[in-house]
């Protein structure tokens, strides 16, 4: 143990002095493991695999990805907190979805029990209507929502997930009764998409990337995107510029087990920092169309606290959380 600490601090020093290159021998993180709290193939899994590849290319040993799916990632979170405590070689991917899952599942383990490392990427959400819908702008939607919240059936992903939270935030910002939100969760992106395209629900909410093709081909009309300002290459007005003061990113981040000492924490922060700033990671971002939302360390910790407060408030307003 002692020897490893020396090693880790040496590594942190090496990083601090900037003598970290491609040829540098080994991140001191021997036997690095990244937990993806989801099945293979999804966003969290792909984040874990991409990060592990980039870190391995930079010399981290091991770099295995473990899939621990279940319950919006809270099964993986429980493993991180109970079984990986104090281990300086373990990372786990998480995101906004896990925050909602912790609340709705009344999970005994929470994010503030872990060591925050960094927010990595994110995706903004779109609000869409079928091409034939009478709703042309967000203001039309807001007016309808105010008049009769029940008449606006939103279709989207799982209950308490990012799509649901955004629907709640929009209703609240529009001055409608959040408790009367009519949100219809579908299992899997395909079913929600079909329900919107077939006109079975009034509006749909999803990550932009998932429905980008249907928006571009004109089968869906995007009313707004949930980013704070317009995104390059996406011709959709933001909620904010249309007078609905809401912005929301479905962020993905990386966290570490509880009980790490400063040297362990700094080593992980350094290793992730180096990986995120590498060209290989930039290539991953463009390939996968992920928006870079890198935010390391304590700032990320603060963001988690703020997002948690906002999510709790909305989910309580909706009635999903008592």
């Amino acid at each position, binding site marked *: 143990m002692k020897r490893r600490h020396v090693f880790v601090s040496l590594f942190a020093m090496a990083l601090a002095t900037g003598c970290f290159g491609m040829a540098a021998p080994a991140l001191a993180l021997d036997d690095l493991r990244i937990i993806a709290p989801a099945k293979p193939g999804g966003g969290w899994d792909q984040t874990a695999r991409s990060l592990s590849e980039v870190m391995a290319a930079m010399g981290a040993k091991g770099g*295995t990805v*473990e*899939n621990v799916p279940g319950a919006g990632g809270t099964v993986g979170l429980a493993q991180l907190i109970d079984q990986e405590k104090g281990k300086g070689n373990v990372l786990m991917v998480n995101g906004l979805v896990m925050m909602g899952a912790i609340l709705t599942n009344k999970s005994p383990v929470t994010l503030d029990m872990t060591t925050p490392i960094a927010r990595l990427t994110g995706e903004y959400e779109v609000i869409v209507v079928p091409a034939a819908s009478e709703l042309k702008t967000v203001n039309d939607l807001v007016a309808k929502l105010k008049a009769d919240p*029940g008449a606006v059936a939103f279709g989207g992903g799982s209950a308490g997930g990012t799509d649901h939270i955004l629907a709640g935030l929009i209703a609240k910002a529009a001055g409608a009764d959040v*408790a*009367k939100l*009519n949100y219809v969760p579908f299992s899997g992106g395909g079913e929600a998409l079909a329900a919107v395209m077939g006109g079975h629900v009034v509006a749909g909410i999803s990550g932009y990337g998932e429905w980008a093709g249907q928006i571009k081909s004109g089968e869906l009309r995007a009313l707004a995107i949930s980013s704070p300002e317009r995104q390059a290459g996406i011709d959709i007005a933001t909620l904010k510029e249309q007078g609905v003061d809401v912005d929301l990113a479905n962020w993905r981040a990386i966290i570490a087990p509880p009980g790490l000492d400063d040297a362990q924490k700094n080593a992980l922060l350094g290793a992730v920092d180096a990986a995120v700033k590498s060209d290989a990671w930039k290539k991953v971002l463009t390939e996968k169309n992920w928006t870079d939302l890198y935010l390391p360390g304590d700032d990320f910790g603060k963001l988690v606290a703020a997002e948690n407060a906002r999510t709790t408030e909305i989910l309580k307003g*909706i009635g*999903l959380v*008592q």
Partner: protein
Amino acid sequence: MNTKQTIAGAGLAIGLGLIAIASVIGFDTMQMQVPPSYARVGPQIFPYIIAIGLAATGAHIAWKSYRGGDEVIDEVEPTDWKSVGIIVAGLIAHMNLLKPLGFVPAGVILFLSVAFAFGSRRYGRDAIVGFLLVLLAYVGFTYGLGLQLPPGILKGLL
């Protein structure tokens, strides 16, 4: 005479078992906190319907067996509980040893227990076949497909 009593007993036990499952479902559903919804039909209605159905079916089966009906039959030959017990033990050992010992040893133990329960006494052949099969599965799935099977004590060797 004896068999007839066992038959009635089994039917009664199954009927009461179904009623027990129904009460567990009913009780669990009563504890739920239900968020408001436009559907009017919340998350509790279906569980209640299923619980009532199970209880009714269970009561029917139990009653018929009690009355000596042939609702539950057991006309097959007597059950060899020893063999069942050996496989059960093998499965329990497998799930508990999978992570600590690894996929290969746990798999071999399961294989041997099943072979033994099926009456094989050729321990040497069974051990060799079992070991090769499990090893092949481990190597194939770990390296071919990247599955994460626990290596256990063979960590580093494979």
